[in-house]
Every structure is written in structure tokens, then in C-alpha cells.
């Protein structure tokens, strides 16, 4: 197991380095844009010269990696937040993204599993048909459509919530205040639809499979009631693939949703990414890219490893 983990980690770092290198080269090949103001332009040009932005690409790459590994310096933001380190800029944006997605997850996971279990138990009855049809619709319809519906009906027509996320100062200066949560609710609801539907579909599929297994028959013949057998045997086994999926969703909340952040003006990582493209703030863009790539890779590894942890019978990487 240890050897397998090590192998996966090394591979992950290798993949990450290759991706970062390619993206870095592609980004540095793009022409830089300077402010219209002559003085500012001169200042920026001097700074870029000093930072080695005009050196050959490979030495730029070397400097970039050196800074990352020795100082943890991912570059500097020049337009979004003038001369602030990129790590700080991203760090500030992480909390809103994580909060909104976290709330949505703790709301949708129990509901998703509940619906899924119910549909599996009532398989092929009308309850299952209703849930499955709903799931099909909710999985397919893009998240921004829910966002619009929520915004239109709950925020605009009924006036229950503000249209977009409140600014930090208006909400008592804290991301954890009640007013902030209140303004997050539309985004949370919009995010939850897809999450609930996806989880429900997955749970239903897994549970229907375990419910028809031989050990369930054995459990019933031993005298367990249907409820007992389902909760003690079927559910436990169905959870083996479901839990890794939940874990990966929890890693995914770092990345958040671009569109939901855009619609509800959440000052998160996703909207930072869009902003960095519009302003051509390349260092921020680069760091954001690394961040997203890293999350994706990490989620993959954690999911694979968690299988082995949850169910020791599954031995990863063994021939």
C-alpha cells in the first residue's frame, strides 16, 4: 500500500510539473499589456525587467520554479491587486468559495442519499419513477438555469433574499455572520440541485445492486427484517463507492463553480480566474491554473486511496 501511495504521489507531481511547464510557457508567450499611463508603464516595465520577464523563456521557467520551491512565491498580481503576492490574492478568495460550496454540500449530501435510498427501496414503483425522472431532469439541466430560477423567483419576485452576495462590509465584516449566510442561500440552493440529483442517482444505482445480492437473501433467511438487512448489510456495502464520491466532492469545493460565482457575484476563486483573464493578470492566472490542476489531481488520488481505506478488501495497485 505504501509503495502504491508513493508511486501515485510521484506520478501526480510529475503530471503537475509537466502541466505547469506547458501552461507557463504558453502564458509567457502571450504579449503583455501595459497601462496607458506613461509613468506607470515605465515602472511596470522596470519591474518586469528586474523580475526577469524579458529573459529567454527557459530561464524564466527556471526562475519561476526556483521562486516557488525556495520562497513559495507564485508571482505578483499587477492589475487585480497591485503588487500583492498572488498567494495572498488567492488566499483571500478561498474562503467565500469554500463556504458556499461547503454549505451546499452539507445540505445536499443527506438529502441526496436519502432520496437515493428511498428510490432504491421502492425500485420500479411510482415513487422510484418520480424520483428517477426528477433526477434525470436535475442532472441534465445546467446549473445556471437553476441559478436564474432561484434568482428570479426567490430573490426578485418574492424578495426573500438579496439578488447577489452581500459585500463583506455590509454583512457585518465576517464571512460567518448571519446576514452573509442569508445572502448566500440562493447560491447554495442553486448549487444543491445538481449535487442532490447526482448523489441520488449514484446511491440508487449502487443500492439496487447490493439489494439484489446473495448475502441479502442470506440475511433475510437468517431472520433479519427487510429494514435491518438493508441498513446493516446493503447500505454498508453500497457506501463503498459512495463515500469516495463524497470525499471528492469535498475536495471539489475548493474549486467551486465558475458560473454560480459569476451569477451571484461571489468574490471567490472562480470569479478571480475570470477577472485575471479579463485584466490579463498573468501571474494570477498561472497560479489559479496550478491551483485548479492540483485540486483535480488530488481528488483523483484521494478517491483511489479512500477505496482501500474504506474497504480493506480492495487492495490498490496489486497485480
Amino acid at each position, binding site marked *: 500500500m505504501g509503495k502504491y501511495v508513493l508511486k501515485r504521489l510521484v506520478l501526480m507531481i510529475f503530471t503537475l510539473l509537466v502541466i505547469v511547464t506547458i501552461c507557463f510557457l504558453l502564458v509567457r508567450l502571450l504579449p503583455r499589456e501595459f497601462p496607458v499611463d506613461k509613468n506607470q508603464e515605465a515602472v511596470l516595465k522596470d519591474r518586469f525587467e528586474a523580475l526577469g520577464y524579458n529573459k529567454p523563456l527557459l530561464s524564466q521557467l527556471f526562475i519561476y520554479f526556483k521562486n516557488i520551491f525556495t520562497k513559495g512565491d507564485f508571482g505578483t498580481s499587477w492589475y487585480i491587486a497591485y503588487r500583492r503576492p498572488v498567494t495572498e490574492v488567492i488566499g483571500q478568495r478561498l474562503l467565500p468559495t469554500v463556504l458556499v460550496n461547503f454549505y451546499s454540500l452539507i445540505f445536499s449530501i443527506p438529502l441526496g442519499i436519502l432520496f437515493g435510498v428511498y428510490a432504491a427501496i421502492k425500485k420500479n414503483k411510482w415513487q422510484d419513477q418520480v424520483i428517477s425522472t426528477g433526477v434525470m431532469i436535475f442532472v441534465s439541466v445546467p446549473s445556471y438555469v437553476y441559478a*436564474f430560477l432561484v434568482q428570479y423567483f426567490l430573490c426578485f419576485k418574492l424578495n426573500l433574499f438579496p439578488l447577489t452576495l452581500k459585500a463583506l462590509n455590509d454583512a457585518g465584516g465576517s464571512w460567518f455572520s448571519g446576514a452573509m449566510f442569508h445572502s448566500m442561500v440562493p447560491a447554495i440552493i442553486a448549487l444543491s440541485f445538481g449535487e442532490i440529483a447526482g448523489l441520488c442517482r449514484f446511491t440508487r444505482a449502487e443500492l439496487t445492486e447490493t439489494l439484489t445480492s446473495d448475502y441479502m437473501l442470506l440475511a433475510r433467511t437468517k431472520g433479519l427484517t427487510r429494514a435491518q438487512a438493508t441498513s446493516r448489510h446493503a447500505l454498508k456495502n453500497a457506501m463503498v463507492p459512495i463515500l469516495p464520491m463524497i470525499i471528492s466532492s469535498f475536495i471539489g469545493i475548493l474549486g467551486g463553480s465558475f458560473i454560480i460565482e459569476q451569477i451571484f457575484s461571489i468574490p471567490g476563486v472562480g470569479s478571480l480566474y*475570470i477577472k485575471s483573464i479579463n485584466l490579463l493578470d498573468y501571474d494570477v492566472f498561472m497560479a489559479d491554473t496550478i491551483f485548479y490542476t492540483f485540486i483535480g489531481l488530488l481528488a483523483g488520488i484521494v478517491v483511489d486511496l479512500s477505496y482501500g481505506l474504506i474497504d480493506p478488501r480492495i487492495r490498490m495497485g496489486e497485480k
Partner: protein
Amino acid sequence: MANEFYDENKQRHIPAEKLKFANQGVKLSDKKFQDKPIGYFKDAWIRFCKNKASIVALIIIIIIFLFSILTPLIERRYNSSFMDTYYQRRPPITTWGYNLGIDGTQSRDFSDKSLVTAYAIGVGAYDALGEGKPIGETLDGYKFQPIRKITKTFRKLEAGANNQNSEKVYYKARIDRYLEVGFLYMDIEQSEYQKIVDWQEETGKQVLYPIVANNDYNYDVIIGSPKSANYWYKTDAKGYPVRTTETGMTRKIPLTKEDGTFDTSIVLEDNYMRDSAGNLVYYRNVGGGDHSSSLFRIRVLYYNYYIYTNGFEPNYIMGTDSQGYDLALRLAEGIQLSLFISVFVCLINFIIGAMYGAVEGYYGGAVDIILERVSDILANVPFIVVATLFQLHLAKKVGPLVSLIFAFVLTGWIGIASRVRSQFYRFKNQEYVMAARTLGASDTRIIWKHIFPNTLGTIITASALSIPGFIFSESMLSFLGIVKLGGAGRTSLGTLLSDASAIWMNYPHLMIFPALIISLLMISFNLFGNGLRDAFNPSLRGSE
């Protein structure tokens, strides 16, 4: 007789002459099959047809596709460059559906001042000569009265001066958004003027209306909007209708009755320009050039002017978009583009994925490890980053559409390739492959003739299921502004949504139609793909 042979006693004593060969003289051979043989695809098709949901989905897809093809043909009058800058963001209106509610109206809240402005458009059209007719006369179905119906009267607290809140009356009313444009000033050439006069006589539709005086009673002058010409009645400096007394004083006209309802019996006092003889003036020479080419400024009722310039009444079944294009036509273009992108990308991915996966899976070993690493790296670059980099690098050279297709293709084939690869691993060591190899078949022949057909079902399913993903990605990227596909005669579903995103609260039709179509497409393609999967691979039925 029939039981003779079954009678045990008699059977023992069958005389020899009664025995004969059953099929003597008949040539025996295998009979030809009566039914046609059912192949893999036919079998899948039969199974697909039994899946009602998928058939419905397929029909919906076909209907949407037909809509996108037929709309430009049916709506000939609006070609893809037809655009009316005054009718932007207007709700659906059709001549045939006028009584069904598709009449271009919208519900909105009015203050008494804004309500009288809207009413005045109707009165101005009705009482073209300034004879002083009350608002009430235009209310019984007069065609050019934009206010259809007041549905609600309510009071709202408003912060007034000195922090004193005052209650103000508001009206909820349905207003015709096309008539609401009302009167406009247009600068035209003299010859054009004569044409309009002739056209008026011919059709009986009035386009030209008297010019409004340029004085202190004209609210359009006060707020400085030179094009608009809706304030034909006298107003004070705040836009309230006033009446002038004989002494030259002005008095506000009270708009509401004591019980708070709007007083429709009021008569607005016209502010038309009159010449020395007291006649109404219908044009003003605004100069420029010599006598024949100098421009006339005329005041037109835009609804009729639209009919005059285009030859038909506004007829937008889905309303108009934020630039003034026919939304149905834009939507058709958007569907065409989105479907084209997704199907085209799907085909390319199919080809690349099949070849890549076949090589990976068939040769295995070192080739597999290297190729797998390459696709692993590509698969782990976030798609949004790929799309962004392609746009930043290529959009100026080859255009945003081609860059987007490149981005889709760069990572899109990986899923297909991995499916093909695993299928190849499954089939490449089977006996029939070995037999083919023993008979001397080349690698290419074994790959494409013997193993690849086995993977077809899987990858057709995977391709079909990837289409909604492309539609969604395109709409997302357009929505976020990373890809800019819009332009005259070309738009995508995502572009329509992103155009609408900032303003759609007040113009819901801008969002509803594109969002509905996207949702329908996504649901249908998913159902269709699931149907294909069940048809090609019945053992997977029910699992997701």
C-alpha cells in the same frame, strides 16, 4: 384408421407392402431463412425502439433541429441581419396570437406621472389634431393605446423631503412594449417625405404627426432627449402635465381622483407647434445641403413608421433580443451553431479517440505506458484553462469558433480513447484474433476489421453522451465571457444567455427561451445517450 398405427396389436403386424420411405425422391437440403438475419446494429435498434423515453428524446432533438432549420426559411422577412434598434428587448408579439396573449405586453409598475406619459402616447395618436380629447376615449380598445389594463392600484411609502415618508399611489398595468416607443423624431430627405404622405393616403395608416413646440413646456427638451417626441402635451419642469390659464400661469392637472384611482377624464393640453395661421406643422427643415437635399425633421408614430419602412407589422414570436434582432431567428442560429460545434467535435473526437485507443490497446506495453501518460497529462489540465489559453493564443488568428473547437478536441478524445483501449484489452487475446493472425492478417486488418467493430457500441454511446457536455461547456464559456462567439448572423446559445444575464430580470423572455432550449437539448441528449447505452449494452441497463 388414424389410430391404426398406435394400436400396439396392429403395429406388430404391419404388412410389408404398407411400409414405404417417407421422403423418397425428395432432395434434402437446409431451408433458406425466412426472416432476415438480425445483426448487431439492427438488434440494438430494435432494443432502442422499445425504450420510450429515448424515442421521445430523439423526437424532441429532431423538433429542435427542425426549428433551427425552418425558422430562417419561414421567417424570411427577418433575415439574419434584420435589426431594429427601437424594438430592442421587446416581448413576443404576433398578429395571429394577438388574442392569445402573445401581444407584446408586459406588466409593470407606474407612478401617476409615468402612467400619464404612457396614456398620452395613445391619446396623441388618437387625437392627432390636438382637439383636446380626454384619455378615457382611447381606452376602449383603441389600437395605439399602449396601456391595456390597470390591474392593481397600490400605495407605497416613499422617502420624501425632511425624512418624512409620504405615501404615493402606484399602478400595476399591462403595457404594450411596442406601442410604448411612441413618437420619434426622424430626419429624412424631402423626397422621402412626399413618399410617406402618399403611403399614408394609400393605406390609411398615419405615420406623420404634428411637431411639438420647442419650449419650456416640452419635457423632452427639458431633459435633453432630442430623438424622443412623446411629450406632446404641456408639462412642468418635472414632467407633470399642466394646463395654462388665460393669464399665462400654469396649473398642475390633478391625475388621481380622491379615492386614489386614476382620473381618465382628464384632458391634456397639447403643445404642438403651429404656424402663423394656427395650422399644425408636420415637418421642420433642419437644413443641410441645397433645397432638394436638405433634411426634414418629422415626428412619426414609430409603430406605423415601422410598417411603412418594412412593409409588415412587428411580428416576433419570441420577442426581440438585446440588440433588436428577432429572438426566434437568433435562437435558431444559436441552436445551429451549438449543434454544429458539438456534433463536429464529437466526430473528430470519435476518430482521434478510436485511433489512439486502438494503438494503445492493441500494442500495449511501452507504447501503452507512454501514450497513457500523455493522455493522462492532457486529461488533468482543467478544461477551462485549455479553452482560455486557446482563446488567448488563437482567437485573433483563426477566430473564436475554431479556437473553441480546438480546445474541445484537445481533451475531448481522451474518454473515447480509454474506452477503446479497455475494449481492445478485452478482445485482443481472444481466439478469433489469434486465428486471424495465424492466417496472416496484418495488424491494421486485425485492429480495424476484427477488434474495432466490437468497440463501436461503447464509443457511439460515449460520443452521444458527450454531446450535452459540449453544449454545456460552450454555453458556460460564452456566459463567462471567455469565448466570444457573437456577431451579426451568428450567435450561440451561450452568447444569448450571457447577453441576457445582466438585464433579464425585467425582460424574462430573453432568458426563458434560450434556457428552455438548452435544458431541453441537455435532457434529450442525455436520455438519448442512455437509450443508446441500453440498446448496445443491455447488461448495463439501469446502472448509470
